[in-house]
């Protein structure tokens, strides 16, 4: 028992702690007990946003224009595919590859950087699908609260993601 705990703690202290906080706002569309589309809004914390805005708002006009949006999409957003966009979609406990996001739009609002994007053409059974939000490397903390979720017809259950190496959240449709 003691050895297990010591080993667990040793493994844990080797992992990093989060430096960026992202609030996740999912908008879930359901049709006939199937999730057909999810629109996500990620709100980055103000300090990380300021660092990114300084770099990404290249003309300094306080807005993300079309070229800047393309640059962010190609250089900052799409590389997150390696991290499954910090979102594991599991169907009957099997993790699926995160669908390619569409309609990506970055914007600056109240000194914060927002990423808006959709995943469409889904046919996910609401009873067997779970969404786990978190960064396994623990550099980014994904924050999800029940009040962040918008959903039609049904209700969403948000719970803590039980993981020994990082902290995250789980969303299930009820």
């Amino acid at each position: 028992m003691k050895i297990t705990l010591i080993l667990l703690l040793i493994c844990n202290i080797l992992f990093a702690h989060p430096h960026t906080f992202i609030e996740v706002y999912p908008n879930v569309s359901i049709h006939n007990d199937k999730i057909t589309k999810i629109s996500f809004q990620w709100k980055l914390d103000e300090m990380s946003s300021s660092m990114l805005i300084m770099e990404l708002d290249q003309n300094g006009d306080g807005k993300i224009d079309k070229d800047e949006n393309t640059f962010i999409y190609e250089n900052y957003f799409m590389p997150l595919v390696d991290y499954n966009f910090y979102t594991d979609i599991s169907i009957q406990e099997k993790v699926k590859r995160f669908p390619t996001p569409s309609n990506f739009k970055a914007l600056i609002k109240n000194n914060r950087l927002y990423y808006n994007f959709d995943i469409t053409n889904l046919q996910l059974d609401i009873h067997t699908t779970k969404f786990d939000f978190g960064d396994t490397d623990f550099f980014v903390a994904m924050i999800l609260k029940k009040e962040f979720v918008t959903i039609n017809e049904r209700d969403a259950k948000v719970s803590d993601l039980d993981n020994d190496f990082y902290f995250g959240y789980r969303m299930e449709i009820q």
Partner: protein
Amino acid sequence: MIFILDIEWRYNKQMYILELYNQFLKQLIMLQYQLNSYISTTIRSLSDDNSLLTSLLILGIAFLYGLVHAAGPGHGKALVAFYFTSNKANYKKAFKMGYMISIIHAISALLFTFGIFYILKTMFRRNFNEMSAIAMQISAGMIVCVGVYLIYEAYKSKKLKELQIEKQNKSEYAVALSAGIVPCPGVMTIVLFCIVLKQYFLGILAAITMSIGMGLTISLAGILSITLHKKAGNFLDKKGFILEMIGGFLVVLLGIFLFSSIGHR
């Protein structure tokens, strides 16, 4: 039947401790999330009318942020803990070590942030990631060297104990340098945020106070490790060098782990 009940009880106890640990991790994240938001809002609200009080408040929050930030998982505490597992020391030394690391951490973060911002100017995030990776490689290399040195010391102390004190001081500085050289992205983010808002002096002070908070937490990790060493040392009696060897091996493993994680990030 009693045997099965005993296993069940032990299993439940283990699960309960894991659950407690997960809750601890969650509270740490939520606290950092709130402090992060609070500190940015307060820095932005800084004006000529309220500069002194607000600045003091910001420094107070930065200290707390450092305290909590360092309580999360990280290689600095692991190195200190393993080092003191490998070396006999008192609590004063743990504080000395914690604060040496935090001073180097603060200097490193300030140099990196101002350097990238004013010399390289563009692509802060990209430059920051590249430079962090280089610093991490240097740190990992140094950690492996420290670990090898500790193993050598443990082997030697078995035969020649009187030389240990003089050598140990040197390894203390090496440990502090290898843990502190990697700038903390948390400190750098606050400094950069202050630079963007043209609060340069406040940025420097915030980096220092945040590092003081981190130093305190790192010192506590050292104290815990010294306590463990004392208890285990008494138990092992004259075979205490075994623990010192284990500590050295763990430091080497930590360095290797850091090397392997650099490519992944």
